[in-house]
Structures are given as structure tokens and as C-alpha cells.
């Protein structure tokens, strides 16, 4: 049966017809878009069509597209959220932000007292001490939750972990080895804070628990899709995944179900195998795709993060004098990989945080394109937080797109002003305005689970450029308009994933992927964008209503 959905407002993102109130869906696709006046014509041409008024007071937008997230978001909800900001779980529960170390400890204590088996490892995530003045969390804090079972708290960055003494004793943390990755107090005693992947390793070794093993299990996928649905996302990426042999089949079984509320674009981790073998693996994945599961991108991570001081920056490097960051892949090897995948005709997305890394990556892309010209390659720089106007001009000339990490402006904006970049360079952080003015295709993202998956919030960040303390980063030239931001989280992201002929706008022939909102973002305006309630989504015409909302 085909259906006409009547809405209060439909923002189509189609310049031909930006605003509508009625939309007809047939076989998972959009049959017609218009107003009440068009319905009679549609009935005579395509009828009979059933009129559905469930969303008559709602606003419909193209389903949001998250162009940079990680499936790990789905895994972390198996553990306990202890972040500073409120965060919505897959079931619609709002987990209130915890505003002090004591709050975190008290919250976990309560969980410890009520859980079935208090001897099991207790794992929490999302902790972010940059908002707490003064002291840092210690092993003693966590011992007060329990000293008789492993207690571990993973930080929001995913690159620091706090452990209790139970874990440290089991790991026999050696005092003698003066590793800079183990934080110590003034007397040289480890405080319980471990940097890099050290903490995660130690927790895995001492608990005999593979914290990451379930990373692509059906349950993780299911949770990931539920988080996406709660925020109006109908297509989400997993950036990146090495796709071990057979994983593609398991993923497809889960994703294919009509009840699975999301289209999943898996970016294959390009350097998970040597170049030739890696291209072959990507080729082998091509006929494993389906309408809802895509293996269409290749991803590389070229440097680290700015707040972790591991991004590669140009002179004068870090504002606080920290040494320049790390390459995660040799520039020569990146060049080799980009050449191999460009030759084979696969679109590449490269994580580049610092501006030095952005330059090196653009050099490598230019090299690849000289060797293997490809007019519509759409290679994309991910994060690309410190790109200058000159970099954007070069991207334009090379046909390279960008997906900016706009959520950083809010979550780490103050940190970037004060510590990592200084006020001047922090002003051009994630410069969406400059990007569009130079004519570079733009998407914006959350990098969930690093920050919460919520495209309307990401759009709000790009429009307002406010840090969490309320400081504006940069000026008007770095901001984008509300309309541009909504475009970035729909058509902009669709373009970056080469899916813009299928999704990203509500126009005839496209997939019926729709975000159902309580209010119209254009009427709400820039300031209230992040607070708009998401009622649910439609994916291929199947309605998925959110938990905790009245339809």
C-alpha cells in the first residue's frame, strides 16, 4: 500500500521545491512531494493512496546523515555513562551529566550496590576531567566504589583510563619503569590514570575481558542504530572497520531486517592490510553490499587529535609548547595507499586533524590524481579542524571535500583557545564558513562516541560557534547559516558518501528516509536548533518511533 503523509511542514533540501506539506511514499521511495492541493492529482495518477495524518503536527526533513561516527558508540552503552553532559541512551533514557568527581563516584557506587554480581568488572565511560577544576580522579576514588572487583573509567577521548587498585595490583604496575604514559603523584606513585591505550590494555589483561570484542556484534549494531534513530539519523557511518573475513555477512544479517532503523555505511580501514591485499579485500566487499549496508568508502587515519596533543601541526605548533604530534601512518605509505585505492576507483576518507597533516594528505591526493586522474573522486578530509583558507582553495581545485568536526567548538573550544591553539587559531577551528565560501563540499559530524551523536546539535555548533563556557570562536566569516547547516547534515553528508542521488533530500525517486521532528528548525531558529525533539524516523518508508516521545 502506498501512503500520503501529511505534515505541518516539510523542509525538502531540494532547491526546486524547498517547502511542502504532503509527501507520498511507495515501495520505500518518495513518489511525490507537494501540498494538500496536489493530493487529488496524485490519487488519480497513482491511487489509491492512503492518507496518514500521524505526523500532521510534525515537521519532516530528509533523514539526517552522520558522515563520521563509530560503531563503538553501540558498544559503550553496555557500560555505564559518567560524562559531564546529559546524554541520551539508545532507549531514550536521559543520563544526567555528572558535574564532579564525587558525583561520578556516587553514581557508580549506587550501581555497584544494586547490580546482580558485584564481583564482575565495573566499567564506565565518557568521563571528562577537563571540566573539573583542581584534582584529578585517583585509584582511591575508584576503590571507594569497590576495592574487591576491577573498576575502570574510560575518558571521553577514549585515550585515557582510570583504574582502581584492584586492577593495578593485578597488573603489578611497575614503579621502576618511568613511563610517561602512567600518571604519578609527587612521590612517584601511580595515581591510577593511564594514557594512550595502556589503560585499556591493562583492564583487558586483568579482567580477561575483551572490551572491544563485541565491536561488531548484532547487539552492538542494534544499540548503535537505536542511538541513531533517537537523533533523527537514518544513514550512519562506521569510520573505520577492518572488516575481518566473514564480518560482512554477519553485519548484513542484522542490518537487513526491516526493524533495523538505519542504513549503515562502513568505511573499510584501508591500512588494515598491505596495499595490494587491501584493495583486493575492498573489491571483494563490493558485491556484499545491499540497500542498507554499504562498503563504499576507504578510511585512513593520518594523525592524532588536537586535544590529545597528537595532531600534526604546522609551525608554531602547540600554543602551550607541547611537542608536535604523531603520524599514525607514514606519509610515504599513505601516498602508496591513496595511489592504490585511487587507481582501483575507491573513494578515500582521510582523518587529518592538524594543518601539517592536512597539507601532507593533500600532497598525497594530488600525487594519486596525477597518476590516476579521476574527475569525480570525492576523496574527503575528515575532521580537518585546522584547515586554512589556502587549504580550502586547494581542496576546491583538487575536488576534495571536507567533513568538519563542528562539535569540537562546543566541547573543547575553551581548551583550544587557552591551551592547544591559542585564541587566534582557535578562531578558525572547523571553519565551515570559509569552507563553503571557497566552494568546498561540506559535511559536519560528531565522531560519536567521542561526542554525542546528534546532527541537530552539530548543526547548532556550526551555526553558533559557541564554546561550553559561552565564548564565540572566530567571527561571522567562520559561521554558516541555519539553512547551510541543515544542508550539511543531509545533502552535504550524502554527497560526501556518494549517496546524493539516493538520499539527502526529499524529492521524487529518492529513498523515503525521513527525520520526524516536533518543530520546524527554520521557525525555531539558530539558537534553539539543538533542543528540537526528534519524534522518530522513516527508513525506506518504514516508520521507527523513538522511545520516550509522544508521536
Amino acid at each position, binding site marked *: 500500500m502506498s501512503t500520503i503523509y501529511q505534515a505541518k511542514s516539510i523542509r525538502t533540501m531540494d532547491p526546486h521545491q524547498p517547502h511542502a506539506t504532503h509527501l507520498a511514499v511507495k515501495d520505500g521511495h518518495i513518489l511525490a512531494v507537494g501540498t494538500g492541493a496536489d493530493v487529488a492529482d496524485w490519487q488519480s495518477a497513482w491511487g489509491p493512496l492512503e492518507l496518514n495524518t500521524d505526523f500532521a503536527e510534525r515537521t519532516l526533513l530528509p533523514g539526517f546523515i552522520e558522515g563520521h561516527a563509530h560503531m563503538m558508540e553501540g558498544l559503550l552503552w553496555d557500560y555505564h555513562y559518567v560524562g559531564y553532559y546529559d546524554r541520551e541512551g539508545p532507549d531514550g533514557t536521559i543520563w544526567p551529566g555528572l558535574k564532579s568527581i564525587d558525583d561520578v563516584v556516587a553514581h557508580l557506587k549506587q550501581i555497584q550496590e544494586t547490580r546482580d554480581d558485584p564481583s564482575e568488572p565495573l566499567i564506565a565511560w565518557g568521563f571528562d576531567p577537563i571540566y573539573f577544576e583542581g584534582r584529578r580522579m585517583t585509584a582511591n576514588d575508584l576503590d571507594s566504589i569497590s576495592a574487591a572487583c576491577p573498576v575502570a573509567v574510560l575518558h571521553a577521548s577514549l585515550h585515557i583510563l582510570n583504574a582502581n587498585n584492584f586492577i593495578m595490583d593485578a597488573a603489578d604496575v611497575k614503579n621502576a619503569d618511568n613511563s610517561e604514559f602512567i600518571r604519578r603523584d609527587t612521590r612517584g606513585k601511580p595515581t591510577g590514570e593511564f594514557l594512550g*591505550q595502556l589503560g585499556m590494555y591493562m583492564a583487558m589483561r586483568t579482567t580477561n575481558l*575483551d572490551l572491544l570484542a563485541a565491536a561488531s556484534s548484532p547487539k552492538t549494531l542494534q544499540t548503535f542504530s537505536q542511538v541513531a534513530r533517537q537523533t533523527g539519523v537514518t544513514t550512519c557511518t562506521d569510520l573505520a572497520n577492518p572488516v575481518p573475513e566473514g564480518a560482512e555477512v554477519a553485519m548484513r544479517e542484522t542490518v537487513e531486517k526491516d526493524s533495523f532503523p538505519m542504513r549503515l555505511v562502513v568505511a573499510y580501514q584501508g591500512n588494515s592490510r598491505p596495499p595490494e591485499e587491501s584493495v583486493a579485500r575492498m573489491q571483494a566487499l563490493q558485491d556484499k553490499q545491499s540497500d542498507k549496508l554499504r562498503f563504499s568508502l576507504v578510511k585512513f587515519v593520518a594523525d592524532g587529535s588536537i586535544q590529545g596533543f597528537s595532531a600534526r601541526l604546522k609551525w608554531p605548533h602547540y600554543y602551550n609548547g607541547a611537542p608536535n604530534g604523531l603520524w599514525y601512518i607514514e606519509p610515504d605509505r599513505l601516498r602508496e595507499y591513496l595511489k592504490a585505492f585511487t587507481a582501483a576507483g575507491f573513494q578515500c576518507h582521510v582523518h587529518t586533524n592538524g594543518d601539517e597533516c592536512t597539507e601532507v594528505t593533500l600532497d598525497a591526493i594530488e600525487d594519486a590524481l596525477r597518476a590516476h586522474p579521476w574527475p569525480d573522486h570525492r576523496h574527503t578530509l575528515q575532521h580537518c579542524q585546522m584547515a586554512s583558507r589556502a587549504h580550502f582553495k586547494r581542496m576546491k581545485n583538487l575536488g576534495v571535500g571536507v567533513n568538519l568536526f563542528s562539535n569540537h567548538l562546543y566541547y573543547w573550544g575553551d581548551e583550544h583557545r587557552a591551551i592547544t591553539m591559542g585564541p587566534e587559531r582557535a578562531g578558525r577551528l572547523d571553519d565551515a564558513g570559509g569552507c563553503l565560501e571557497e566552494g568546498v563540499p561540506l559535511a559536519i559530524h560528531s565522531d560519536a562516541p567521542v561526542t554525542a551523536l546528534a546532527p541537530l546539535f552539530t548543526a547548532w555548533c556550526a551555526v553558533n560557534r559557541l564554546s561550553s563556557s559561552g565564548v564565540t570562536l572566530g567571527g561571522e566569516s567562520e559561521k554558516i547559516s541555519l539553512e547551510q547547516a541543515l544542508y550539511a547534515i543531509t545533502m552535504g553528508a550524502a554527497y560526501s558518501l556518494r549517496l546524493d542521488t539516493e538520499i539527502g533530500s526529499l524529492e521524487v525517486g529518492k529513498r523515503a528516509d525521513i527525520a520526524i521532528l516536533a518543530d520546524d528548525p527554520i521557525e525555531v531558529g539558530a539558537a534553539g536548533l539543538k533542543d528540537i525533539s526528534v519524534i522518530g524516523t522513516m527508513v525506506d518508508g518504514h516508520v521507527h518511533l523513538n522511545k520516550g516521545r509522544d508521536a
Partner: protein
Amino acid sequence: MSQSPPIGSAPKVSLTIIAGFLGSGKTSLLNHLLTQSQGRKITALVNDFGALNIDSELIEAQHGNQVSLTNGCICCSIGDDLMRSLADIMRQDPLPDHLIIEASGVADPTRIAAYAAVDPQLRLDGIVTLVDAAAHALHAQDPYLADNYHKQIEAGHMLLLSKPDLVEAHQLETLEAELRANYPTTPQARVRNGHLPIEVVLGLQAKEQVQTAPPLTPQIEAHGLKSWSGHLPDNLSRNALADKIISLAPHVLRAKGVLADAQGAYALHYAGGRIHFENLDVTPSGHFVLIGKPELPNAETLSTLFQPARA
């Protein structure tokens, strides 16, 4: 691969990290080590199978990212999965004697070394950094990688100068002098096509073998290196012994002993400026072995130094 019991007092795995830029000879060195394992069970965690030219006679089986060898296994981990690969290896039963991690060309080897500090079953033997003699000038001034290059050299407990045959003798000497000036306590050795005695890179044989006979191979002399071994008196404290070894740096590449002092029995491992003591509950043989450069003092001087009671 069966699950090992929770970590505790199980035997220690020695960890060696091979660092160095792309093309600096890490793979050749690893190849050479795997073909002369001399009874050690070695697991190697490498960046790239393809480049390893594994002797087919050594291969028992291959599945996925793992090749089983008659004397150990090779696991491949590229991308950013080192942490999980390491955790998987450390869950193997039985554990290998020695784990070699080939760091990527841009890795900070101290980051990898740090895993040993939080794993009671891992003992860091050392970081071996390969310096490409032919490309040194280029790498030291690379606009994007120079800081990384110097960090790797600084992190090295031993510096191996590869491709010495590709540069003029005086250039090689200049490079060696430069490294010596900047890193005076870090020993250096030249390595051609990966050929270096396994004792130099991985340390001397397992402790059982040190107890019985000093494992000196004629290879050591063949490589232009020097070795000395002897029985040490048990009135020599471990700290005094450490001072004596350090007084010979940077000419000492390796030392190992299964010894006793007033505190009890212990094994001593020395690699490039780092001394590690491990308490033992065996009766020590008192044997001590030293491998070093030709500049080491002669045997007579060494016995005066280490065996004062007998001198």
C-alpha cells in the same frame, strides 16, 4: 589458542621492540632473527607479512593474520590494532620466550614499551632502533618526520646502523661519532642485510642455558664483536656489578648473568644502558656473559674488573 589462567606469577616474556623508519632494514633483521632462533620460542608481531620472506621450511601453518612457525609464530597487525594483537598474544598458552614487535616507521617506541610496565608477564628487554646510514642525512632533516626520527633514536636502547656498505667509511665514522656525541651511553653496532648475532638483539639465551654453559657463538667474533664470560664471586653485590657494566658503556651491547649476592639469587639482563634484575628461586650458576664492541678491554682487564677476588 587456549585461554591462559589469570595473569600472575607465570613466566615472563621478554619484549624487544624494533624501531626505525620505512626501509631502514627492520624486516631484514627480523628475517635473520627468525632463522637463527637457537631453540627460543619467538613470536613476532609485524607490520606487513608481505615483506617478510619467511623460510618455507619454518612454516607450519597459516591462517588469517597468523603464521605458525616451527619455532614460534608471526602475527600481523597493521593499522591501529597493536593493543588488541598484543593482548591476544599474551593470552596464548604456552607463552613465547620472546616477543618481537616491529614498530611502524612512525611509531613512538616508548608507547609500545609502556605495555610492559602494566603487564606482569612482560619484561621489556629493550628498544632496538635501526638507523639507515645511507639515508640518515635525509631523515634527520625531513620536514615532516625529523622530530619523529630523533625521538626513535633517543628511545633506542641500542642503535643499529644499517646499510653500512652503502656509504663511504669516513661518512659512517662521522655518523657514529655524531650519534655517540648525542647519545653517549647508547651502544651502537653496524648491521648489514640484517645479519647480527641473535644474542646481540634479543639478549643471551634463556636462563637455564646460561646456568650450564655460556652460550658464546663463533658468530659473535665473525661479526667483529667481542665477548667475555666468567664465573662471578658471590660477594659482588648487584649494584656494584651494575656500576662495573656501566663503566664500560657504550662498548657493551649485552650482558646476562645468573648470579647471587647477599639479597639472594637473581638474573641480570643488560641491554643498551638498561639493567634489569629479576629475583630467582633457582640455585644460580654464577655465570656471567658479556657481548660488546671491539673497543671492549681485553679479557685480562675484564677478569680483573669482574672477578676482583681472583685477580
